[in-house]
């Protein structure tokens, strides 16, 4: 470090920042990861029974899907602000908000996945003497996994991106550093935290893709699947709008 350090020069990319503030960065990243991960896990635990319920009761299907869609439309800053008086200034505000957003994606995808199970597969399982529980967890759930995992991936990536808005209540993980860097005009901090946030999202997406591969080994083998894979990527249709705000 001879001459002016990049910290005093307020440069965008600064090795010294990484070295001197690594503890702060690690803490923020950890907070970011646990808030996003916890919310997706809770959302999955809530969405699964909700989707089963909506599938069984045809009448409730519209209201369940409609309500989650309305929740999804509420901007994140407003969602956190509305939850704040209920839950106080705490991490649960952010987690609850993210759970509500993830629910929309997950309920929709689980429902679609279960509906895509061929009736023949169900018939065959029943014929083999499968009870309702074994049918659900042994046949329907594995066949619904690709759709379910697509939902989990979108939910996780969105949750990581939206956690930054939690900086409003000081539980935004890397978002705290981003917003704090605006006040102090600290370029290196803003850029580093933003890049880390994107890297987290990409890493989560790849990790979940790997998990999906492990959970659905049959999709990887067979010439048909291999031929279809790039095509499916190509034609993968628009997911729900990026929930970025």
């Amino acid at each position, binding site marked *: 470090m001879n001459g002016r350090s990049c910290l005093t020069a307020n440069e965008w990319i600064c090795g010294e920042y990484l070295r001197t503030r690594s503890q702060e960065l690690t803490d923020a990243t950890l907070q970011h990861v646990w808030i996003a991960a916890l919310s997706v896990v809770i959302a999955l635990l809530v969405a699964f029974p909700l989707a089963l319920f909506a599938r069984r009761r045809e009448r409730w299907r519209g209201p369940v899907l409609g309500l989650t869609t309305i929740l999804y*439309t509420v901007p994140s800053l407003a969602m956190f602000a509305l939850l704040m008086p209920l839950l106080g200034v705490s991490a649960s505000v952010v987690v609850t908000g993210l759970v509500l957003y993830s629910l929309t994606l997950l309920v929709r995808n689980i429902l679609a996945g279960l509906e895509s199970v061929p009736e023949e597969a169900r018939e065959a399982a029943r014929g083999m003497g499968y009870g309702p529980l074994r049918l659900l967890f042994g046949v329907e759930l594995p066949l619904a996994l690709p759709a379910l995992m697509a939902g989990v991936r979108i939910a996780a990536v969105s949750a990581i991106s939206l956690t930054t808005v939690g900086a409003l209540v000081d539980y935004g993980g890397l978002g705290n550093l981003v917003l704090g860097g605006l006040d102090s005009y600290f370029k290196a901090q803003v850029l580093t935290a933003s890049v880390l946030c994107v890297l987290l999202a990409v890493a989560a997406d790849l990790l979940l893709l790997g998990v999906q591969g492990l959970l659905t080994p049959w999709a990887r083998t067979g010439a048909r699947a291999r031929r279809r894979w790039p095509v499916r990527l190509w034609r993968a249709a628009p997911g729900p709008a*990026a929930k970025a705000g």
Partner: protein
Amino acid sequence: MDAVVQAWTWLTTAANWAGPGGAWQRLAEHVQLSLVCLVLTCLIALPAALWLGHTGRGGALAVNVSNAGRAVPTLAVLVLLMLTPLGRQGELPTVVALVLFALPPLLTNACVGISEADPAVVEAARGMGMSGAQLLWRVELPLGFALIMAGIRSAAVQLVATATLTGPVGGGGLGRIITAGFNTYDTPKVVAGAVLVAALALLVEASLAAAQWLCDPLRRRPRQPARANPAGTRGGAVPAEAA
């Protein structure tokens, strides 16, 4: 429940709405910013999507743009742009950030809407001697209308949501009411601001859904019963498509 009552009192107090920095001004700022950005987004995304969809080379691009948009946090981009030289240009960094995040949903939906027109119908139209422009205008556009409108709708909702985030970054709009309330520990103000933002977003969503229904060229045709579309798979549309 106390917070709700107090927020209601805040909302029904005329003094909170009037004057500079009042709710009317914030609402007008919010709507104006979102509207300008929506027009810009449509001007950029629609021609690009029509061309990419029509020529059939947009698929991979549209999906990748949409996925990338999801991974990048809006707040971070807003703050980053504020710190660049662009940040001294008044509203410009905000407009850039807003348009950037409204482009993916519109681009993706419109592109897929055009390119997924039934190949048999497209083939028949070609067989009837339609030119490329006629094909686009009279076949692919009407068939893709629902998805294009869904794209405009999610872009608009996205814009309203992103415009809220200019509050914490020092801009105007309804988000400013929320952050101002936070900074002064004024919970009723925070809740009132949040209610206004949520109401605006839902209103935009509902009115565009109504507009889509009214303008749909295929409205009088018998429809397939609505099914839940999976997100991120083929045929998945925006969540606003709920039954």
